[in-house]
């Protein structure tokens, strides 16, 4: 079980009931550690109400290209992407870069 804050920015809040930040309690599959991959599964299963919106968020089982994922303001590519083990107080933000300028 881990307490994290999740943010949906750059227009992504549109598929999360227009709310930009959420505080979540996420349970890992084996009960011990929770990875960002688990968090993404949790978001897709519990937070995206409309099935059609799922493809806005994920593609080929990962975050869709064009969405910027930051773990504590660090590009998740530098943190091991889905393998990163979450700790209490972590902030994970998803920002869409695809909207107009």
């Amino acid at each position, binding site marked *: 079980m881990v307490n994290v804050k999740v943010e949906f920015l*750059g*227009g992504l809040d549109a598929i999360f009931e227009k709310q930009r*930040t959420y505080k979540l309690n996420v349970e890992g599959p084996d009960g011990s550690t929770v990875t960002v991959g688990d968090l993404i599964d949790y978001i897709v299963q519990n937070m995206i109400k409309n099935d059609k919106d799922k493809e806005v968020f994920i593609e080929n089982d990962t975050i869709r*290209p064009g969405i*910027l994922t*930051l773990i504590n*303001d660090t*590009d998740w590519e530098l943190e091991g992407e889905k393998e990163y083990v979450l700790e209490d107080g*972590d902030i994970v*933000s998803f920002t869409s870069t695809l909207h107009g300028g």
Partner: protein
Amino acid sequence: MSFTPPSDPRKPKVVKVTQLCELCHARKALIKRPKNLQKICKLCFFHVFETEIHNTIVSNKLFERGEKVAVGASGGKDSTVLAYILKLLNERHDYGINIVLLSIDEGIVGYRDDSLATVKRNQIQYDLPLEIVSYRDLYNWTMDEIVACAGIRNSCTYCGVFRRQALDRGAAKLGIKHVITGHNADDMAETVLMNILRGDVARLEKSTAIITQSSGSPIKRSKPFKYAYQKEIVLYAHYKKLDYFSTECTYAPEAFRGTARELMKNLEAVRPSCILDIIHSGENLRLKPKRLKRAPPPSHVEVRSDGSVSIQRLNGFVDGNRCDRCGYLSSNKICKACMLLEGLEKNRAKVSLEKDTSVEGAARLTRTLEKLAF
């Protein structure tokens, strides 16, 4: 609509040597630059990003001292970062330019009204003057009315043609000869790809120019973000907590551009440098010069299928012609915007007769139509 800035993570953690910034070797690297895969920290990122924009501006001689420039401000990420950075660089490097924000109000309820609210906040945050030009004032039509009349499919065609003119007219009204837009590297690579995929050879060569100006037009346009990645612009806005608006336009986005964008995002995921590579290819593309058409006999007048007539040209194509109706730059007798407007007005007259809705807009249009003489 108010602005909620992204939260600040609070955790100082033990940083491994391999996680350090490749430039300063002192702070933890936060981002991996798409153009060269360099891992750098927040402060070094601000520094290199701003410096690269400065270098683009200087090496392309975009500005002249004392020049008044208009930033095409939509309230979106690109133009917000552009306004912020131009103001910053102007102060830091003393370009000696006067910056004005210029916004276009297309009249799209639930989209442009919200984004204009953002621009109005930016005006205060950056202390820059703001001018808003609306489609309603210029054309007596809002985009909402146009879509109701012409359908959602053509919305981008109308909006694009009208916006180009509107920016020029807004700039002219302010006595400004230089409009700066926030087009970034992704936009430009997308356009190059689109032109290639469509075989639009005429546009292909010009599509990567950093400064564009039609001959005869007093207004030039430039794109200082030509080499800036969308990802870095969004990161910059995120770290600086800039207040920008991010919702897709209510009307269907241009379908083909969407496909090209998707293709590019997927390419970028595999090979991030491809965006700059596409621009580089576009810049170095030289087309074979066109064969000259045999000139028609001097008395020959071509009548097109829509009944319009091409104007007499002395030596082939003459740039800098003006539209007969509105005086805007046009290669034809009537400019594209006036053509579209004419089509719309025929339609609206019919609609208002059928429904007899004497709303203010329709009534005003009928009066204008009555005065029109062809």
